[in-house]
């Protein structure tokens, strides 16, 4: 049985296709203005890439903040459930998941069967999300792709104390004008995110083995800062960013 998962996030839209539980392929595009169009496009592009007809796909499950805007899917499931299922599929040993996406961050605790036991999400605030990093990258005029590696070279991370993204940005601007090294500022930004997410993780009772998913998992600076803060090793799959879409596709197999 071939199933597909589409994860429409606030920044990027992801798709994954599975055949009898085996991953056939994934794709990531920018969401842009139109969530529904992004969902359709990423799905069609992936099918073309894999040389599959739409009729070959038995079930399509959508997830992410735009999950209800795509009408051609069989079911919409929240990203909490999908990230739980996806992480369990990629790493059956996983018991906790930290997912940092574009507009929210979440911590999910799953049981030995991959079912969600508990979860927490950030409150109405961009601190501790991918959007926070984007704002900071712009202020620092650094490409987000090199953010992680730069921060690993930091001598002593700056202290970013504000919880508000806008105020944190002005903190960063004053650090820049004070002549602080870019690496230290970036490391400080990562520590600030880690502190916020770690508090949430402790609140829901995070347990190892811990995996990290979502686009921000590609940023080694954040991963390292979180490992330090939580005193726990974090495993990152090469499919971390498309984990939600994979989870959705896995759910498609078991759906009645």
């Amino acid at each position, binding site marked *: 049985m071939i199933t597909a998962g589409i994860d429409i996030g606030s920044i990027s839209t992801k798709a994954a296709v599975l055949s009898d539980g085996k991953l056939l392929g994934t794709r990531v595009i920018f969401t842009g203005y139109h969530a529904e169009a992004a969902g359709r496009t990423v799905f069609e592009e992936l099918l073309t890439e894999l040389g599959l007809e739409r009729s070959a796909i038995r079930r399509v499950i959508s997830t992410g903040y735009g999950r209800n805007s795509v009408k051609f899917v069989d079911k919409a499931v929240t990203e909490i459930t999908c990230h739980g299922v996806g992480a369990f599929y990629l790493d059956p040993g996983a018991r906790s998941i930290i997912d940092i996406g574009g507009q929210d961050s979440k911590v999910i605790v799953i049981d030995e069967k991959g*079912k969600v036991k508990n979860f927490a999400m950030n409150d109405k605030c961009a601190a501790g999300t991918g959007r926070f990093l984007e704002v900071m990258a712009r202020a620092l005029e650094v490409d987000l792709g090199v953010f992680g590696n730069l921060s690993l070279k930091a001598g002593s991370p700056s202290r970013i104390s504000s919880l508000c993204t806008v105020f944190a940005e002005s903190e960063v601007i004053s650090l820049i004008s004070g002549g602080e090294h870019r690496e230290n500022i970036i490391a400080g930004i990562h520590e600030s995110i880690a502190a916020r997410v770690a508090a949430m993780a402790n609140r829901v009772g995070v347990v190892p083995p811990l995996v990290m998913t979502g686009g921000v998992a590609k940023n080694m600076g954040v991963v390292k800062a979180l490992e330090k803060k939580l005193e726990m090793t974090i495993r990152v799959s090469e499919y971390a960013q498309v984990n939600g879409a994979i989870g959705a596709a896995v759910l498609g197999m078991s759906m009645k």
Partner: protein
Amino acid sequence: MAEKKTESMNLVQEIFLYFLAGIRRTLLRFKKRKKIKEILTVYYMEAKSARISGRKVAWITSGGPVEPLIAMDVIPVYPENHGAMIGASKMGTDLCETSESMGYSTDLCSYARSDIACATVNGGPIGGLPRPDMLVCCNNICGTVLKWYEVQARYFNVPLFIFDTPFCHTGFSEEVRRYVRRQLDEYVLFLEEACGKKMDHERLSNVGKLSLEAQRLWQAVLDTTVNRPAPMSAFDAFYHLALIVTLRETREAVDYYSRLLERMNDRVARGIGAIPDEKHRLLWDNIPIWHRTRWLSEKFASHNACLVADTYTSAWCGSMKYIDENNFFDSMAEAYTRIYLNIGVDEMARMVLAMVDKYNVDGIVMHSNRSCKPYSLGQYDIAKIVEKERGIPSLIIEADMVDERSFSESQVATRIDAFMEMIKAMRQ
């Protein structure tokens, strides 16, 4: 000159309201099935024309001892009930912004903000509350009410009585009983001075009996939801609650809840549920998100989940056990001190656990209310205790009871959807 003109216009308006209230009350008397809205309309009309009828109006906090007011023929008016009406009619954000431009902080309770703003602009769904002759502030629900009522006492230049109920961390001591009991005497003296007449203690005792009867009926109504399916939901309780808050010591409330109980028992007998297909039962904690009750109700119903009980509406009958029917006046001291918001988190958790068992719920939905710190503090601990003791999960929703700016629909929707997916998966 302009002031004089407004004043005479107000007087004409009040005379008109007075006669209209008289007619509506007579009509209501002959009506068999009174609607809550009709009862409240007459109540507010009478309060707004109290100057004409020669009665006094007292503003009182929702948890305040109201029975002595009734015994003195004073009309009690509840700014918090008014706040709920403002929230439900989605007028909260505007009024909160008005109070913020007056200099009040956004961190202040939105009931307080909207009430303070409303007093100056006579806004809101009923054109502002009737002018008070006195204020009665009981701090058993929170500390904010102290400053809020002081502000209003200065604004309206009326006397304020503060009824201080010490927080009961672990229990209730003899010293606290004596301390609060003595204030009841002071309260009576305050009312006698404000009204220029003596308290009729026999009447007070009768008012107390009626109040207790209404509370028992209200509890009985809430208890009908132990049945599967529940004949009503917490969202219905939020609606029917209005009388137990504002008119609990009246024959009208007793009659209303007697009939409501009959109706609910009938639904139980016929197996009619509040939602079409009740599969999951949930408990609500904290003050409703007044501006989103319908949306929330539909959201949960779409998951076949019914909020069968809540810690909020039961608060108005939660301390019945401390009331002595034959000595109402003395027992008020304990009953008004040991209410849900004035006890320690351990005892709150015990009460929540008892409700979890009684109503047989599968999960708890907690509204972490930006406005209400005493209610929201301890929610994480209570959630952990319930999880540990009964293995039941809790969902925490961040919002505000009145201020719509603290609500994000898509974020709350995702949390509810994920919570329901989790509950469904757990029960598989």
